């Protein structure tokens, strides 16, 4: 067992994803560098990671989000960028994780459409979102009857 002392203690890291027809991750990175003021910005294939004091990160993230509000998405990250336990530079291959992001980015254009349509929605109109099916599953007694009918 070795002692562990955290890097970047007291900082927060946020992912900024961009899925826009008008903006690329490198465009976003240039804008972020312009207003970074000492906050760490890491450009990635999907957008950015922003690491620093919470207030500074919030300021940068809100400025970036304003560039293309319906196509820029933000979420928290637990690890700072380049952490030896997660960074693929140290793991020798593809990094675990990102499956959820990969899945959700495939659907994110539907969310963008929803965000764009929101201001034009009549007030008081009830939404009808996709909800889980209420159809009951196969009853155990019914399954038993099916099995018995096949055996006889």
């Amino acid at each position, binding site marked *: *067992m070795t002692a562990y002392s955290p890097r970047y*203690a007291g900082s*927060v890291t946020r992912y900024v994803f961009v899925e826009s027809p008008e903006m690329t991750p490198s465009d976003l990175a240039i804008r972020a560098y312009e207003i970074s003021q000492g906050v760490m910005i890491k450009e990635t294939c999907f957008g950015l990671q922003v690491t620093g004091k919470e207030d500074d990160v919030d300021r940068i993230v809100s400025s970036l989000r304003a560039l293309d509000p319906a196509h820029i998405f933000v979420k928290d990250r*637990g690890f*700072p960028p380049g952490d030896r336990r997660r960074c693929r530079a140290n793991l020798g291959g593809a990094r675990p994780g990102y499956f*959820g992001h990969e899945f959700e980015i495939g659907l994110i254009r*539907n969310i963008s459409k929803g965000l764009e349509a929101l201001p034009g929605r009549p007030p008081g109109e009830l939404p009808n979102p996709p909800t889980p099916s209420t159809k009951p599953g196969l009853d155990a007694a019914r399954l038993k009857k099916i099995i018995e009918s096949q055996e006889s």
Partner: protein
Amino acid sequence: MAKVFLYPTTSLILSDLVARFGHTPLSAALQVRERIQTAGLESPPLQITPEEPKKGLRWAAVEVPSGVRGRMSLYGPMIEAAEAAIIINNADYSFGCMGCARTNELIKYLVRKRNIPVLDLEYPQNEEEGVEFVAAIKQFLDTLKGGSP
């Protein structure tokens, strides 16, 4: 501003929408960050120590596998702190191993047992569903403490 528990706890879409509409998303990253930024003994990759399954006893019985109890030490405090929850039910990617699967079932059970407002949804598969999905989340969040009327 209400604390909103998300399921899947790593969801980008839910995390973004909850923060965008003025509330606090409770996601797994916050719990991971807390452990990563606490000095102690090296326990890679997530700084989950043997103490975590003991903490998980608050939400799962002793005969429940330690993998479930360890995960519950991350999610349990967030469920207790939550003032509302949004659950996406067809998040197949969060299935994982049996530890993940059983923890997911326990999370949903504990959220419903708390009697807080819960919004049940599925992922939108087309643009029309996306419009309704976003509108439903906005309407749900507006009804919470600190939401815009």
